[in-house]
């Protein structure tokens, strides 16, 4: 540790006798100002999250009270089944905001988001958690030194690049392999999105696994338990809240991920449970439509309403993740 002694000297310049008190006063005043400035910045950081909620909420609220807006887009139009189809073919949920009768059912968007998110988790979570177990429990030092930076690299790949690859490369591969009806569908987008959420699931799980105290491991090894058995029956249960946190945070990340789904999901707001149909998610809808919308039109407010829902949902998921992490800490530290 190199200590810069000259800096210490300049921090307290040797005062000449008569300037001593004024010098000290100046230093104290600067100290006071700096303290206030620091406090101001902390408050600024806290206020950003409030401002985000406030300014998105502000543009979303007219859906609740403005009669002009509610003529087209009331909560009823948004959530309740409507009669858009005919007797033979009822179409209760349609998202079609541009047209003679704008249709704003958010159900297909929620369903689409859920479909892609679940596929991403099904594909990404086992990989990420498995890799985390391997690096935390079995891997030799050099393997760890490869896997961890590679996951960091993956986290550094911009999602627009993942979207591009899903659109240009992955979609063609999947099409050739399985021949789904639509080239761009929930499966393609979900697999590409798995790549976007693997880093966060891996990092949080790995943190949880390595946080399990060494005494747990030593005790079970001393009892003659094989290392893999120890990983399953001692380390994993101890780290469970952390793994939960990883899944919850991964879920939140997937829900809000925009570019991958915008480019690779096909963007058709279809109400179907089939995973190989094209889907349109909430985030992709905002990204695709807000650019062309008339300022303060019903459509504009509905898109902000969707944004507000996305914000609240991810906020709740984050809090849940935080809660699990806190529980892990309590559990492992024993208080």
């Amino acid at each position, binding site marked *: 540790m190199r200590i*810069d002694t000259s800096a*210490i000297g300049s*921090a307290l310049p040797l005062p000449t006798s008569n300037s001593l008190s004024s010098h000290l006063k100046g*230093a104290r005043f600067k*100290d006071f100002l700096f303290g206030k400035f*620091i*406090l101001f*910045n*902390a*408050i600024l*950081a*806290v206020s*950003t*999250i409030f*401002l985000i909620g406030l*300014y*998105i909420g502000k*543009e979303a609220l007219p859906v609740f009270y403005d009669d002009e807006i509610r003529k087209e887009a009331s909560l009823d139009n948004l959530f309740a089944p409507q009669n858009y189809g005919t007797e033979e073919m009822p179409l209760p949920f349609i998202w079609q905001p541009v047209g003679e009768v704008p249709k704003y059912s958010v159900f297909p968007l929620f369903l689409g988001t859920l479909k892609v998110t679940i596929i991403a988790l099904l594909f990404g979570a*086992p*990989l*990420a958690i*498995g*890799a985390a*177990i391997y*690096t935390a429990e*079995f*891997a030799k030092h050099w*393997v760890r030194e*490869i*896997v961890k930076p*590679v996951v*960091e*690299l*993956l986290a*550094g*790949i911009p*999602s*627009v690049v*993942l979207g*591009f*690859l899903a*659109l*240009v*490369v992955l979609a063609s591969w999947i099409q050739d392999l399985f021949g789904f009806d639509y080239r761009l569908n929930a499966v393609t987008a979900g697999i590409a999105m798995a790549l976007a959420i*693997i880093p966060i699931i*891996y990092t949080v799980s790995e943190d949880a696994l390595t946080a399990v105290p060494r005494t747990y491991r030593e005790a079970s090894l001393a009892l003659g338990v*094989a290392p893999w058995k120890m*990983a399953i029956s001692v380390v994993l249960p101890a780290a469970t809240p952390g793994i939960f946190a990883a899944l919850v945070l991964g879920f939140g990340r997937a829900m809000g991920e*925009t570019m991958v789904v915008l*480019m690779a999901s096909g963007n058709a707001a279809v109400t179907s449970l089939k995973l190989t149909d094209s889907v349109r998610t909430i985030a992709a809808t*905002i990204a695709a439509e807000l*650019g062309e919308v008339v*300022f303060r039109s019903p459509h504009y407010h509905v*898109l*902000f309403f969707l*944004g507000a829902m*996305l*914000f609240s949902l991810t906020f709740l998921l*984050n*809090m849940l993740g935080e809660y699990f992490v806190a529980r892990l800490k309590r559990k492992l530290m024993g208080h």
Partner: protein
Amino acid sequence: MATSPGMPSRGKWANALIDNEMRRSRDVSGKIFRFLTGAACLVIVSMVALIIGNIFINGRHHLSWRFLTAAPEDGMTGGGIFPAIYGTVLLVILMTLAVVPVGVMVAIYLQEYSSHSSRLYKATRLAVSNLAGVPSIVFGLFGLGFFVKFLGGSIDRLFYGGNLVFGQPAILWAAMTLAVLTLPVVILTTEDTLRSIPNELREASMALGATKFQTIRHIVLPQAVSGILTGGILAVSRGAGEVAPILFTGAAYFLPELPTKLTSQFMELGYHVLVLSTQSPDVEATKPILYSTVFVLLALTFLLNFVAIIIRSQMRARLRTRG
């Protein structure tokens, strides 16, 4: 493997055999478990290799000096991507100017000033961790609603008599939106560094009569430079790759001129990739350009990440040697 009194005695050899059998079966499932988790690692590493390999192989053909320095031509099927590179660089510079000072100050608050039981400390912690989880498209909405419409609109009403100057998408607002998005990155990285600086240094400085401000300015911050640098680099790398927040706050598909003012719109690499790959009239003709643009974007973010990883691993090594 002790025989219980009720069981018929099996003799020493039989017991040893059973024991052996069990151990072997245990080893098999152990091997399978190890193999599966190891395979997960391998799959992740090879997927990353595949991504990078694919982009490197397909992206390098079209890469040339001209590609990096010329403007797009022939409806995006020819020319280069200079305006997009220029816009991206300008954008992240503006963003860094905004985010690094605030982020460092907040980290100083969290590590040096706050008492950990105070309300503001808890609120700041909560805000930082939640900010990191807000979807990027929500930042886009926020940027449009707050920066463009509210701040920009207010400035126009106050100083420009209601003419549209600041109240429209602009590089300034896009940079501010990205600054909010990358704030947690800077805060968390700086905090890590501040935590790694031994308390003895602060105590020695305070004991010599230095004020807290003098201690932070002359003792703490000089030690934290590399960490702050890492935070800044990571923020830039994150900001350079985000597209959703700038969709409505200033990015443009094609501009004949480079942005010259804070209120200009701009072209950006990530946005360029999005537009080329989803709205191109001739997919096959734009593909080489598209690949090379992705190559440049990826090279930029990787280079930044790489530098950050190296600085950080050195920092951690320093921390370890100290015990």
